[in-house]
C-alpha cells in the first residue's frame, strides 16, 4: 500500500466491510427474487403505494444515509461543534489538502454511484414509472459532495453546521422535486447537477484547508449575554440534590436537541399554510405534518439520548465520569426520563404557540374552527374536546416515548444488541409494507384478524406483563430499586391504565366494542416493561 489514496480507501473499506457485504447480499437476494418469482414482475405502483415499495426503499435509503455519514466522517465527529468534523489525525499525513478532501469525495462518489447503478441493474422493479439511469446517480453523488463540504467546514457558532447543511440540502432536494414534477428532461438535469461537483470539491478543499490551519471563526461573542463573560463571573446556587444536578446534566447534554430541531423545521412547515388558503384538505395535511414533527424528530434524537457515551461516537461503554457518580443506576435513568419530559414539553410548547399564530396570520384559522364546529355538532362538544385533547396527549406521550423507549437497548453498551436491534427494526420496516398490503387486499385475512383480535391482544398483554414481572424481580434482586419505589411505580402505572381505560369506555360507549378489549388496549398503551428495563441495562453496562 504505497499510496495515500489507497490507504484512505483501505480504511473506509476495512471499517465498513460488513455493511458492503450485507448490501451486496441484499441486492443479490432482490435480483434472485425478481428472476425466480414471476409474480414480482407485476408493476409496483407509488400512488397508491404498493407494499413492495418498502422492501426496496427502506434498505436502500438507509444505506444511502449510512454512506452519507460514513464518507462525511459524520459517524465519528461532533456535528454540533464549531470545529470541522474532518478527523484531525489525518491532517498530520504528508499529503496535500486537495488530496485530503479529494480522496474521500472520490471514494464516496464512486460508492454512491455504485449504489444507484447496483440498484438499477439488480434490484429495480418495473415501477410503472420511468426512472432515468444517469441523473439519480449524479444526484446522489452531488448530495454527498455537498454534505462532505458543509460538514468539514468550521463554523462560527455551535450547531450552525446542522442548520446550514439541512437548509442547503433541502433546497437542492426541492429543486430536484420540482424538476421531477415538471418532467424536466435528463440532459437538463445532468446540466444542473454536474457543475455542482467541482463547486462542492472547491468548497471542501477550502473547508479542509481552514480546518488544517486551525482556523475556526468565533461568533459567540455576538450572542453572549453580558453575565456570561469572564469579567462578571456567574453566580448560581448549589443544586438542591444530586438528582437535580444529574437532570441538569442530561438536559444540557441532550435536552435542547429536540426543541431545536422542531424549532428549525416548524417555520418551514407552517409557512406552507400561506399556500393552502383555498385548500382546506391541504391545511389539515400541514397541521398533521407539524403535529408529527416532534415524535418524528424524537426518534432521531433518541439515538443520542440512549448512547451511554455521546462524546465518543463508536463507544458503547459508560464513561468513567458518569460511571463513578455516586448515584444508583435507577437515579441516572430517572434523570434521563426527567430530561426527556422537559425536552418533550419544550418542543410541544413551540408547536402549540407557533401553530395558532401561523393559522391566524395565514388566514386559515377559520378552516380549522369550521371543521371543529362540524365535529362538535356531530358528536357533541365534550366528545369533540376529548378527541382533540386525546389526540394532543397522544402525540405528546408518543414524543416522550420515542425519546426513552430505546434506552434499554442503547444503555446495555453491547454493540451486538444495539446493531441487532437496528437490523431487526429495519427488517420489520421492510416487512411492514407487504404485510399491510396483504391484510388490505384480503377480506378473509381481515375477518380472521378481527375474530382473533382478543386473543392477539391478550397474548401481547401476557407477554408485556410477563416481561414486566421478570424485570421487577431482577430490579428487586439486584437492589437497583427499593420495594417502596417498585410499589409506587406499579401503583402509578395502574392509575394511568385505569384513567385511560375510563376515558376509552366513556368515549366508545357502544355495544360493538367489548370493555375487556378497551382494558387490554389501555394496558398495552401505557409504557411499562421497556422503561423499567432501562436501569437493568445501565447497571449491566456500568458494572461490567
Amino acid at each position, binding site marked *: 500500500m504505497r499510496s495515500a489514496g489507497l490507504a484512505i480507501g483501505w480504511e473506509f473499506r476495512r471499517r465498513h466491510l460488513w455493511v458492503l457485504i450485507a448490501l451486496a447480499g441484499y441486492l443479490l437476494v432482490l435480483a434472485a427474487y425478481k428472476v425466480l418469482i414471476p409474480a414480482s414482475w407485476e408493476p409496483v405502483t407509488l400512488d397508491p403505494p404498493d407494499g413492495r415499495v418498502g422492501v426496496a426503499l427502506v434498505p436502500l435509503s438507509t444505506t444511502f444515509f449510512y454512506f452519507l455519514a460514513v464518507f462525511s466522517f459524520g459517524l465519528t465527529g461532533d456535528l454540533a461543534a464549531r470545529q470541522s468534523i474532518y478527523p484531525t489525525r489525518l491532517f498530520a499525513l504528508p499529503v496535500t489538502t486537495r488530496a485530503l478532501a479529494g480522496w474521500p469525495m472520490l471514494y464516496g462518489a464512486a460508492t454512491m454511484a455504485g449504489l444507484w447503478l447496483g440498484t438499477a441493474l439488480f434490484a429495480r422493479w418495473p415501477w410503472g414509472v420511468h426512472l432515468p439511469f444517469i441523473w439519480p446517480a449524479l444526484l446522489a453523488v452531488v448530495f454527498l459532495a455537498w454534505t462532505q463540504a458543509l460538514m468539514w467546514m468550521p463554523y462560527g457558532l455551535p450547531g450552525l453546521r446542522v442548520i446550514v447543511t439541512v437548509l442547503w440540502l433541502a433546497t437542492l432536494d426541492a429543486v430536484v422535486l420540482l424538476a421531477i414534477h415538471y418532467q424536466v428532461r435528463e440532459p437538463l438535469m445532468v446540466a444542473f447537477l454536474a457543475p455542482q461537483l467541482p463547486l462542492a470539491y472547491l468548497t471542501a478543499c477550502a473547508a479542509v484547508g481552514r480546518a488544517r490551519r486551525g482556523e475556526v471563526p468565533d461568533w459567540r461573542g455576538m450572542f453572549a449575554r453580558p453575565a456570561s463573560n469572564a469579567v462578571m463571573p*456567574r453566580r448560581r446556587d448549589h443544586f438542591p440534590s444530586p438528582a437535580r444536578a444529574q437532570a441538569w446534566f442530561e438536559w444540557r447534554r441532550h435536552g435542547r436537541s429536540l426543541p431545536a430541531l422542531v424549532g428549525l423545521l416548524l417555520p418551514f412547515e407552517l409557512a406552507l399554510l400561506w399556500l393552502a388558503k383555498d385548500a382546506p384538505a391541504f391545511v389539515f395535511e400541514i397541521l398533521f405534518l407539524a403535529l408529527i414533527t416532534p415524535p418524528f424528530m424524537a426518534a432521531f434524537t433518541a439515538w443520542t439520548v440512549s448512547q451511554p457515551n455521546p462524546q465518543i461516537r463508536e463507544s458503547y461503554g*459508560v464513561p468513567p*465520569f458518569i460511571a*463513578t457518580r*455516586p448515584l444508583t443506576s435507577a437515579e441516572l435513568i430517572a434523570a434521563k426520563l426527567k430530561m426527556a419530559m422537559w425536552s418533550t414539553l419544550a418542543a410541544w410548547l413551540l408547536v402549540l404557540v407557533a401553530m395558532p399564530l401561523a393559522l391566524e396570520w395565514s388566514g386559515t384559522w377559520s378552516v380549522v374552527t369550521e371543521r371543529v364546529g362540524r365535529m362538535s355538532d356531530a358528536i357533541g362538544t365534550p366528545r369533540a374536546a376529548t378527541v382533540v385533547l386525546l389526540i394532543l396527549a397522544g402525540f405528546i406521550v408518543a414524543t416522550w416515548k420515542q425519546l426513552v423507549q430505546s434506552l434499554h437497548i442503547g444503555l446495555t453498551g453491547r454493540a451486538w444488541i444495539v446493531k441487532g436491534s437496528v437490523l431487526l427494526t429495519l427488517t420489520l420496516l421492510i416487512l411492514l409494507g407487504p404485510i399491510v398490503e396483504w391484510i388490505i387486499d384480503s377480506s378473509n385475512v381481515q375477518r380472521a384478524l378481527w375474530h382473533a383480535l382478543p386473543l392477539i391482544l391478550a397474548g401481547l398483554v401476557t407477554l408485556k406483563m410477563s416481561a414486566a414481572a421478570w424485570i421487577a424481580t431482577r430490579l428487586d434482586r439486584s437492589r437497583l430499586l427499593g420495594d417502596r419505589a417498585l410499589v409506587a411505580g406499579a401503583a402509578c402505572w395502574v392509575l394511568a391504565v385505569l384513567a385511560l381505560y375510563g376515558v376509552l369506555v366513556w368515549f366508545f360507549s357502544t355495544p360493538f366494542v367489548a370493555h375487556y378489549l378497551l382494558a387490554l388496549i389501555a394496558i398495552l398503551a401505557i409504557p411499562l416493561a421497556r422503561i423499567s428495563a432501562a436501569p437493568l441495562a445501565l447497571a449491566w453496562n*456500568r458494572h461490567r
Partner: protein
Amino acid sequence: MSESVISVSELTRRFGATTALDSVSVSLPRGAVYGLVGANGAGKTTLIRHILGVLRAESGSVRVFGLDPVADPVAVLSRIGYLSEENDLPGWMRVDELIRYTSAFYPKWDDAYAEELRQGFALEPSARIRNLSKGQKARAGLLVALAHRPELLVLDEPSSGLDPIVRRDILGAVIRTIAHEGRTVLFSSHLLDEVEEVADHVTMISHGRVALSAPLEAIKSSHRSLAAAFIAHVGAAPSAAEA
C-alpha cells in the same frame, strides 16, 4: 493503621483469551499512600476499575470500606475521589459548572477548599473544559476529586503525559490529602520516581499478577532503589517495558 479501606481477595478477570488480573489479593490500610506500579497493560487500571465498581468481580471479591462497590455504588463512590487516566470530563461544561455540578453529589463538599484549589490551579471559571490544555484538564479533574475531602483518593496514572509543573501539583495534592488524618491514597503510575516520592507502600503488578507488595522502606532496605526492585521482580523498568 487500622482496618482495610480496600480489600481485594483472589480477584481474577479475563477479557476474552487475555487474563488481565490473575488471583490478585491486596489490602490497603487506612491512612496510607499506596503506590500501584506496573508497565502499561499490566492490570493497574483493571484493578482500579474493580475498586470503583466499574468492573464486576468475575471470581474473587472486592470490598471498599467493607462494602461491595457494585452492589452499593452510592455508599462507596460518595467517599471516593477519583481522577481518571482518560480524563473524560465533559468538554461542554465550564469550569464553574463542573464545580457546581460535582458539588451536588458530595455532602462533604468544601466550597472554600474548591475555590482555593481553583485559584491555585489558575482555572478560569468561565473556561470550557474542551478548551483547556491537557494539564489544565488534569488540574480540573483533580479539583473535583479533592474538594469533597474524600476518605479514599484514587489516582489512575494521573501524571501520564503531563509536564513537570502539573505533576508537581498532583503530587502536592497527594501530600495534602494524606496530611488529613485517616485519608488514604491509591496512586497508580509507571513513573517509579514519582511513586517513590510519596508512597508508603508499593505493589508491583505484572501481567495481571502481583509481583511484589511491601512497604517502601522494606523495599528500599533490600534493594538499591525502587527501580532496582522493579527490575529484580518484574524484569524491566516500566518505561523500558513500554518501549
